């Protein structure tokens, strides 16, 4: 009895002492880091979409003190059969993740399911629109970059460079996002062709070939290497990539070695020109860091909001690492004269003097997209229903 009493008293004393010193104690002890998880659809070092996200995560670790990233890459049913998004989220939450970023359109359903199961964890689904459509729970937000501008610049550079007037677009799968990006590319190319070079509109050919997914899955998608080769072999001398990986530049480099005058424009990642510098006209890329920092700071401070963010370039300097979500770096293969024209083009886009999404504009089937003088709303651009008139290639699945 006495023993128990003694133990109880000493325990109470200990607790009291602990409570007394706690305020100091917390400051002295290393703070528990704020863990955020990242689900990458491709390899973290793909020189494309997934690497851009991975480095965005590293940017957060560097710029928001006390944060730590955990990630898993190749999250797609072809690379990891049987592994589901909710399963990975469960695991990351157990490892302490308080916010989870899912970087693929492909994860839309899985991440929504996971968000419902973990109401206390915050989720960012990149490229999705669950918030717009009202399907998202309060803890799920959407983030995307206004790549339309990057794509316009890419299309502009392509049209200035092409000798044959034939531009190929290596498309991923068909949905609203990919249609609006291919269309933006075309608008940039058309502007350069008609307004800058003053050439005959009928001489510009812009063809889109879709492979079926964001990257090559043998036996499931069309092989992007073959698609790119096919473009180059049939007179298309500039290929613009819309997929997550770098096949366009790689194949372009091979063709260049065979003596063909060809060029390519990769996508997604600032360093994507590397290794194909003699054919690379430049790359429109995402810089996810600033967007992530915004969400993660809000999550830490308790100011989280479920919103749909479509972040654009910082027109003061579209390549500012700290402010611009979308950028374009010119590649070594871009001619100096074209470079000057490109700068003027970017300036005009930024000042608002130039809005390429201005009517009259028609869908591929001839129906009206924008009436004369009408400029497209965000919503109209986001939910691009078809390719535009003047482009060739499929608008939707047959």
């Amino acid at each position, binding site marked *: 009895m006495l023993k128990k009493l003694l133990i109880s008293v000493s325990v109470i004393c200990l607790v009291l002492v602990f409570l007394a010193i706690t305020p100091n104690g917390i400051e002295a002890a290393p703070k528990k880091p704020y863990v955020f998880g990242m689900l990458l659809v491709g390899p973290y070092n793909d020189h494309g979409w997934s690497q851009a996200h991975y480095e965005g995560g590293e940017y957060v670790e560097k710029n928001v003190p006390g944060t730590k990233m955990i990630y898993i*890459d190749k999250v797609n049913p072809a690379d990891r059969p049987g592994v589901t998004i909710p399963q990975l989220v469960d*695991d990351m939450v*157990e490892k302490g993740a308080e916010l989870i970023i899912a970087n693929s359109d*492909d994860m839309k359903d899985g991440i929504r399911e996971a968000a419902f199961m973990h109401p206390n964890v915050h989720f960012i689904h990149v490229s999705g629109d669950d918030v717009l459509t009202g399907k998202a729970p309060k803890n799920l937000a959407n983030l995307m970059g206004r790549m339309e501008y990057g794509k316009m610049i890419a299309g502009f550079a392509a049209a200035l460079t092409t000798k044959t007037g034939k531009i190929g677009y290596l498309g991923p799968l068909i*949905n*609203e996002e990919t249609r609006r990006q291919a269309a933006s590319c075309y608008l940039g190319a058309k502007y350069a062709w008609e307004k800058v070079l003053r050439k005959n509109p009928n001489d510009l050919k812009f063809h889109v070939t879709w492979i079926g997914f964001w990257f090559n899955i043998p*036996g499931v998608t069309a092989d992007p290497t073959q698609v790119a080769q096919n473009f180059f072999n049939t007179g298309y001398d500039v290929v613009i990539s819309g997929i997550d990986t770098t096949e366009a530049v790689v194949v372009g480099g091979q063709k260049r070695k065979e003596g063909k005058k060809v060029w390519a424009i990769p996508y997604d990642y600032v360093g994507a020109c590397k290794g194909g510098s003699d054919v690379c006209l430049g790359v429109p890329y995402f810089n996810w860091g600033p967007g992530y920092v915004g969400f993660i700071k809000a999550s830490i401070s308790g100011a989280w909001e479920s919103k749909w963010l479509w972040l654009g370039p910082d027109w003061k300097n579209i390549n500012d690492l700290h402010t611009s979500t979308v950028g374009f770096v010119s590649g070594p293969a871009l001619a100096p004269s074209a470079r000057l024209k490109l700068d003027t083009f970017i300036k005009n886009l930024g000042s608002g003097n130039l809005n390429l999404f201005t009517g009259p504009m028609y869908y591929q089937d001839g129906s009206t997209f924008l009436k004369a003088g009408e400029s497209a709303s965000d919503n109209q651009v986001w939910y691009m229903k078809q390719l535009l008139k003047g482009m060739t290639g499929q608008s939707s699945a047959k």
Partner: protein
Amino acid sequence: MTQISHATPEKFIRYTREALLTLLIVFAFTTLILLLAGAPPFAAYIHIFRGSFGSWIKFTHVIKAWIPLTLCACGLLYTFRINLWNIGVEGQMMMGAVFTTAVLRWGLESQVPFVVMGSSLGAGIIGGGIWALLAGYLKTKGGVNEIFAGLGLNFVAQGLILWLIFGPWKRPGVASMSGTEIFPIDLWLPYLAILRLSPVALMLVAAAVVITALMLQYTRIGLNLKAIGSNREAAFLFGLKPDRHMLIAMVFAGGFAGVAGGLQVTGVYHRLIPAISSNYGYLALLVVMLSSYNVWLAPFVAFFFACLNVGGIQLPMMLELDSSLSGVIQGALVLATLAVHAWRSRFRRAEIFGKYD
């Protein structure tokens, strides 16, 4: 492939011992590869273990993988018993998923979701069964080796799924291999929120194991399958019809695989995706071989494989091993299993011939 009819405890112990031996070799093999890759093997195993048993939620994910594996393994026991290599089990699972999806789509507006769900799983059985019958007919009527027939039909099934997802069943305006539109929540296989497991799926697996055990050990069909599998000519002279029994075995295999595919749709992905079968069919072939074609051992081996599948994801996450390494380990597992299997059957043959020479 001439195995037990009555599972005496002695034999069971011997099979368990052999399975354990195989696992040991697999471990040695894997350790070697991990060492070659510059990874700490012990830490890797710990992570795989924790990744499978670290929490109840993780355990439920293991069970989710175990369910289709065990179902396919049960089906394969019938075909192995009659000496058929039903590689087509993967495609049979896919067709089960396709048929299930078809019924669920048809019942989208229905007021009685559980009826729709029940009949969708029934359709899954039919789908898998039909696909298996096709391979069976090619074998019995066309003389096409069931391995090639099955493999070919797997490709056809995969092609069919892709076509459905990109074509008739696509999401409006979208052509992506992400899969069909997700089903409304009342068409999801109900699961117990506390356990995070579906009692229906668990009951189906338990039923599959028990039915298979009874069928193979105590019924005439089971006996016939074994007789034909052991010596086709002798069985034929004895008045048994090998062709008919091959078709029966195939239907059972396809039916079980079909349920597995259906459960993947209603219970796991809630939609049809291109990789709906997740290679569980192929993995189940290994499960059955590794368990010496023993129905009571198969669920345990399946459980081990499920742990590897689920826990393996920790390797890239915790050790930052290049994530393709877990694929290499699985490949090694396949090779090790086959090697042990070949070695064991040769050993056994020597034993038998030694006795009767």
